[in-house]
């Protein structure tokens, strides 16, 4: 059993004999704090309600992180961890339930498999957990894949190969060359084609017995319930928070399991959110992070094989739900670290105050998700920011008094492309390195596509710069229109 040091706040030290720190054993933070109260019973009424819940004005930190941002009381503890109890005003706690249950019942009259189908699925039929009965359940099943990118691509391939009867695909992008590093559903000849067209073709070639239904649109509050309704399982392979919350909320409202996956650089997360028997995504993350805090794959990069692992895990969970076998990842968050090559598992609990899935939920319909996630309307990110087009910049650079060019991207992006003569200052470092920009000259700030530079321009205007503009469309627009020798990304 791990041993953690508990830091006792000054007001509670009279109850621990004046000791500021107490070493307590426990598997997770909840057990440690309860262990502390067991050792010093006078503390109990200050830490817990009479019902035994942590009081809402008790904040608990594991090392530097508030456990509400981790897995609350279920946050696992390692030897030597420091658990700090900090007085505060807040809310939260838990209950849970889980257990497998098949989704597709065997009610309709079974249709016999053809000779070819028996051969195709023979390795499934050999498994007692699948067999003819399970294979029929798969054939009757409908799975919706929201997003056919890094996560959706491998999941779609495996689900089609496994003989899932209907695969719904939601996406509206076209295949780009930079997708092929991880989106294994597409080939080089598909570049420029609508993803769903290429995906349908590929999946039907893989297994003609699968119906592929295309939903070539952006999922939004107006169409989500209608699109999700016919499906047994929804697989969330989205790359943005508004859609992620939308998928979660629609699944909760429709009573469907949501097989969740997410990836970031070298790390992945998988869980099954099924509000009927466990927590939903909102129990884990009631609020989205600030929009500029979480970079997308396009900004942060991702190891190509990572979504393959995570998408395959999601496909596994979807199959288990359809077959009603095994222990689904309900109430558990699986963390995968590709660099360490380590899997960890955290217990998730249903938030008894969840606005969406608790008994006293206050939200009973879909909301405006871009607004909820603080995502600016298209164009709003650069609204009010003085901009310069690539053509205007070219002319200004050729003039007698050229502007100072400031590249606010990250160092690894500088290696991909750069405009000669730029001063390289990552956006986050700008305030402290502002002295490097002479106020006398005009300044043009650029990034990849114009979003970060708009922010940086606002920062500089706020610091008293007057002649500062943001390059519209970023270095990618510059590369497309002025200097085709540069790489776009």
């Amino acid at each position, binding site marked *: 059993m791990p041993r953690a040091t508990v830091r006792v*706040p*000054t*007001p*509670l*030290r*009279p109850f621990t004999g*004046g000791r500021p720190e107490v070493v307590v054993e426990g598997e997770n933070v909840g057990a440690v704090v309860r262990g502390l109260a067991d050792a010093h019973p006078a503390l109990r*009424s*200050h830490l817990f309600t009479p019902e035994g819940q942590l009081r809402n*004005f008790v*904040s608990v*930190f594991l090392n530097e992180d*508030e456990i509400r941002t981790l897995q609350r009381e279920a946050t696992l503890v390692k030897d030597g961890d420091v658990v*700090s109890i*900090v*007085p*505060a*005003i*807040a809310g939260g706690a838990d209950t849970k339930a889980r257990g497998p249950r098949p989704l597709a019942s065997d009610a309709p009259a079974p249709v016999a498999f053809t000779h070819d189908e028996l051969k195709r699925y023979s390795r499934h039929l050999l498994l007692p957990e699948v067999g003819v009965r399970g294979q029929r359940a798969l054939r009757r099943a409908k799975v919706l894949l929201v997003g056919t990118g890094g996560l959706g691509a491998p999941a779609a391939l495996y689900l089609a190969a496994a003989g899932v009867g209907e695969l719904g695909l939601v996406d509206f992008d076209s295949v780009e060359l930079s997708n092929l590093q991880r989106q294994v559903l597409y080939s080089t000849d598909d570049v420029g084609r609508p993803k769903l067209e290429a995906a349908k073709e590929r999946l039907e070639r893989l297994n003609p017995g699968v119906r592929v239904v295309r939903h070539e649109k952006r999922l939004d509050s107006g169409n989500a319930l209608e699109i999700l309704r016919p499906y047994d399982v929804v697989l969330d392979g989205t790359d943005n928070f508004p859609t992620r919350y939308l998928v979660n909320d629609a699944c909760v409202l429709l009573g469907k399991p949501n097989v969740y996956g997410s990836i970031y650089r070298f790390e992945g997360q998988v869980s099954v959110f099924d509000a009927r028997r466990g927590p939903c995504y909102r129990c884990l993350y009631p609020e989205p992070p600030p929009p500029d805090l979480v970079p997308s794959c396009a900004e942060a990069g991702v190891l190509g094989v990572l979504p393959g692992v995570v998408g395959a895990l999601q496909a596994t969970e979807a199959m288990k739900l359809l077959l009603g076998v095994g222990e689904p990842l309900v109430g558990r968050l699986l963390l995968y670290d590709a660099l360490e090559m380590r899997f960890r598992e955290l217990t998730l609990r249903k938030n008894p105050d969840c606005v969406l899935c608790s008994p006293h939920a206050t939200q009973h319909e879909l909301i405006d998700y871009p607004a909820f996630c603080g995502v600016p309307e298209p164009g709003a990110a650069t609204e009010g920011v003085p901009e310069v087009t690539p053509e205007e910049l070219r002319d200004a650079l050729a003039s007698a008094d050229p502007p100072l060019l400031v590249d606010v991207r990250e160092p690894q992006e500088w290696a991909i492309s750069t405009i000669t003569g730029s001063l390289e200052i990552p956006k986050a470092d700008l305030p402290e390195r502002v002295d490097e920009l002479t106020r006398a000259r005009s300044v043009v700030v650029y990034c990849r596509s114009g979003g970060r530079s708009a922010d940086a321009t606002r920062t500089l205007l706020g610091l008293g710069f007057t002649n500062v503009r943001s390059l519209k469309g970023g270095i990618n627009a510059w590369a497309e229109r002025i200097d085709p020798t540069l790489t776009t990304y």
Partner: protein
Amino acid sequence: MTAVELPEDLVSAMRGFAEEAYPEECCGFLLSPPQPGGTSTRRRVVAIEPAPNVSDGERRRRFVISPAELRAAEERAGRAGREVSGFYHSHPDHPARPSEFDQDHAWPWYSYLVLSVRGDGEPGDLGAFELDPERREFHDVTLAVLPREGGEPGTRL
């Protein structure tokens, strides 16, 4: 603790913060020399430090000091040889009496100062309170305002 001593200039500073934040509530930390054992019946507040009111609801009626902010204040106080001995906050257009909400969220041991602040510029009153260790009652404690030049405790507000 049965009495809190507070220099007059800290009261003025607190009023300044309260007026600045008006019509919202202001809040902050009370800092005192550490009292090991905590058996003294007097607590001397030697400094105050404003804290951001991070209540995401109605800051006209609520204050929240984030736990991270409190931890940071405790660290700063520790380095300066002091401890966070309590909190102050303002009640815009309300008397300096603790509300039920104040009591529900109070901790034992800490001193709580409540300063009334009014929109018409008239100075409001100031009260000091503490929660008993059994969490039953949020009771009044004596507040002694020390005149500027040190000296003897002045009048109770």
